[in-house]
């Protein structure tokens, strides 16, 4: 197991520090998109539904509602396409995976802010 970690660390050069966040937090993911030869950055802002896996394999799901359609995107946390992750709001939730949030709309679909 340790040797696998050594192998993974060899690929970790130039990987940025990622802020800590969890389910219920609102984040903006700055994602690099390649169009032909050009590269631009797209911001995907939404609520973190879950954080899954650990180490290099960690990934998180972000949900946002756009034009009344719910969109969920899964990002690998170590993906080189992620330019940066901003944590906009810390949410107060009781679960590690807030799947119930998908069914909520309107005023119900609000998450209390966590005061630090």
């Amino acid at each position: 197991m340790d040797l696998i970690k050594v192998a993974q660390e060899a690929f970790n050069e130039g990987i940025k520090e990622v802020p800590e966040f969890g389910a219920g937090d609102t984040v903006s993911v700055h994602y690099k998109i390649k169009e032909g030869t050009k590269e631009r950055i797209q911001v995907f802002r939404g609520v973190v539904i879950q954080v899954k896996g650990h180490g290099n394999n960690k990934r998180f799901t972000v949900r946002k509602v756009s034009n009344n359609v719910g969109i969920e995107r899964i990002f690998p946390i170590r993906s080189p396409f992620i330019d940066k992750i901003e944590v906009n709001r810390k949410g107060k939730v009781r679960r590690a995976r807030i799947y119930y949030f998908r069914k909520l709309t309107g005023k119900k679909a609000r998450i209390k802010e966590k005061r630090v």
Partner: protein
Amino acid sequence: MPGLIGKKIGMTSVFSADGKNVPCTVIEAGPCVVTQVKKMDSDGYEAVQLAFDEKREKSTNKPEAGHFKKAGTSPKAKLVEFKEFEDEFNLGDIISVDIIEEDSFVDICGISKGKGFQGVVKRYGFSGVGGQTHGQQDRDRAPGSLGASSTPSRVFKGMRMAGRTGGERVKVDNLRVLKVIPESNLLLIKGSVPGAKGSYLIIEK
């Protein structure tokens, strides 16, 4: 082919330079010790015998112990002969992963995982008999006909049937080397490699 002996550590995935998540196998390769140099005059062919992985002195028998003592090394668990090494080697020389270049291709040979007694669908990739409807039953994974009837009145030798599967020597060609880490003797190979974790592998350049 020149090469060295390694041990499968396990699999993981890494992000490549172009951002793709690539599956890879981690192999602890070498350092291997030269324990015998076979020459045309004395042995009838040229080869280099390499040894890898420590072994307890207690479980080494006397002929083996003498063999390792001659090479001036501690007892080793796995011995393999390699041919066509370019350099000349002496007994006790050490060969490590840095003989393998990054981004090159290697062939890897190992003993595949044992699967036990398996039917022909898993063992030889047969598709079973017929469909799953039209009153067909119990024949989904059957081998089908074994041959004709009165001529030849027997089943030909070598007919593929159910039996012990896996646990045999398998060689996979042209596997890409993603990275070589000489400090910890590691080799990262794209994709999978035959065998269980901890099993020995022969890596050929």
